């Protein structure tokens, strides 16, 4: 290798290390500190590794109800994914395979709802949910999450269906399958990549959401994990150990899932376009 090549390689590596450090420092630092004792965390000359390794922080948050928050988060996330996939895979099929009056309006509304940030809908949604007595219920949260995430699911599914050869469905119809049977037995099994992408996208939203849940839930028994963490923020104050431990309970499973299946995540972010 020529010296200039070596130099550019070294520069590239240095920049890469810097980028990785900037992205990961807060997370790794938090993870390591979640195993530290309170005195250790508040030391003015920080040290990477815990002086004494302790699970105290984790025990403390589970005593404070994190188990219940986790359960609620899993329940709400699963419910949202199920509802979104059921409605989205069917609606996406209607959009991908039929020409009908109002198709343009439907498409435009899907993109609009996909793009409108949740925050501007919080007060209106809260106002409505209070009227119909769905505040403080996990069902209410599932319905609202699904309404927010369904457009992207429809979009992912519809763009994927369009890449499938329609001839397959024709031959199934000729063989006497109904449309519903064709969708269930032929189209959906072929659409696994799109289904995975949609699942991950919705799951991440439902698992991570804080702003919708904090406005709709106030009872401790229905709180999801992020709301639990938010309340710990007031409860523990400057006692960072338990806060960091609760944060890790929220992010470690998600990061593991993301690293394992990242190409599907990216498909959701860019709005469809999954490769089989």
């Amino acid at each position, binding site marked *: 290798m020529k010296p200039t090549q070596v130099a550019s390689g070294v520069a590239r590596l240095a920049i890469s290390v810097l980028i990785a450090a900037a992205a990961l420092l807060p997370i790794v630092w938090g993870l390591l500190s979640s195993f530290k004792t309170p005195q250790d965390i508040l030391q003015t000359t*920080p040290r990477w590794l815990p002086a004494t390794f302790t699970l105290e922080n984790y025990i403390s948050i589970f005593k404070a109800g994190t188990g219940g928050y986790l359960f609620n988060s899993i329940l709400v996330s699963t419910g949202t994914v199920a509802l979104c996939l059921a409605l989205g895979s069917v609606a996406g099929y209607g959009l991908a395979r039929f020409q009908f009056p109002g198709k343009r309006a439907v*498409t435009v509304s899907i993109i*609009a709802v996909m793009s*409108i940030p949740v925050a501007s809908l*919080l007060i209106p949604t809260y*106002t409505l949910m209070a009227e119909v007595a769905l505040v403080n219920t996990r069902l209410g949260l599932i319905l609202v999450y699904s309404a927010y995430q*369904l457009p992207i699911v429809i979009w992912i599914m519809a763009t994927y269906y369009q890449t499938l050869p329609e001839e397959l469905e024709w031959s199934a119809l000729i063989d006497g399958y109904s449309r519903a049977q064709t969708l269930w037995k032929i189209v959906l099994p072929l659409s696994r990549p799109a289904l995975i992408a949609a699942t991950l996208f919705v799951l991440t939203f439902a698992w991570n959401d804080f702003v919708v849940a904090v*406005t709709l839930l106030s009872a401790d028994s229905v709180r999801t994990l992020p709301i639990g963490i938010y309340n710990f923020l007031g409860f523990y104050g400057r006692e960072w150990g338990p806060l960091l431990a609760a944060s890790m309970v929220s992010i470690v499973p998600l990061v593991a899932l993301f690293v394992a299946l990242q190409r599907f995540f990216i498909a959701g972010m860019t709005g469809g376009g999954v490769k089989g």
Partner: protein
Amino acid sequence: MTAGPRHAYKYLWPALALEAAFVFAPLLLSIYYSLHKVRYFELGAMVWFGNYLDVLSHPVFLNSLQVTALFSLSALFFTFLTGFGLAFFLNRDGPMSVLLRTVVLIPYVIAMLVGSMLLKWLFSADAGLIAMANAYFSLTVPTILADPKYAMAALVANAIWRDSAFAMIMLMAGLKSIPPSLIAAARIDGAGWWMTFHRIILPLLKPAMLITMVRLLLHFANVLTFPLILTGGGPNNATDTVALRIFRVGFEDYDLGRANAMAILLCIFNVCAVMLLLAAFRKRGAVA
């Protein structure tokens, strides 16, 4: 194939019903509420545009508009620039690039609440990092989150840290859609690196750049978690964004009339931005 309109709606109506109930109905109800005096859920007298006039002449709301503009534009500028740099730096498909793409996406994937909390901790005096940096570089950075200017910078830093990877992914998708043959042809015609970038890549990347910018702007103009967790709107309302103001007026003062008026104003801004987005999509031919 015989596929009439009735068939299509058979597939669509459950999804459309859910959207109607939980996205469009709330918006309509919100408009209705915003035209009334509301106190603790008691719908009072109709005041027409009273709430809007009230809000728009209130110095605290005007301050929050200013704060939101400053935050959104700074965050947009730096996040887009960082994402743009990352997209080009990591565009080549090597194991190193793939690994680094995964790494920079982690702050985007985790809960915003957790990300902002981790940063709040790092920026606080408690983590000891600031104290150490002060000693090491002989600086005198005070407690970051207690100083109006630094607090805004911290908020922007939070945005860059989380959302640069989003800009990167969007721009990389745009780069992938440029046919390599075009670039190869330019090379054969003797175009250098800058010429190729300036004359081929940049013009073809424009729709993707526009979509990325509008989506980032929408996100930043509406984001609630960053200011709520990181700065709480302080110090002295220096980071009190519109989203945070709406949250406080709605869920702490329970003034749903004014809160809904503000939410509708924010929604109008969003709809304008979305229309821009749709125009960009149409240009790219993504919408049939």
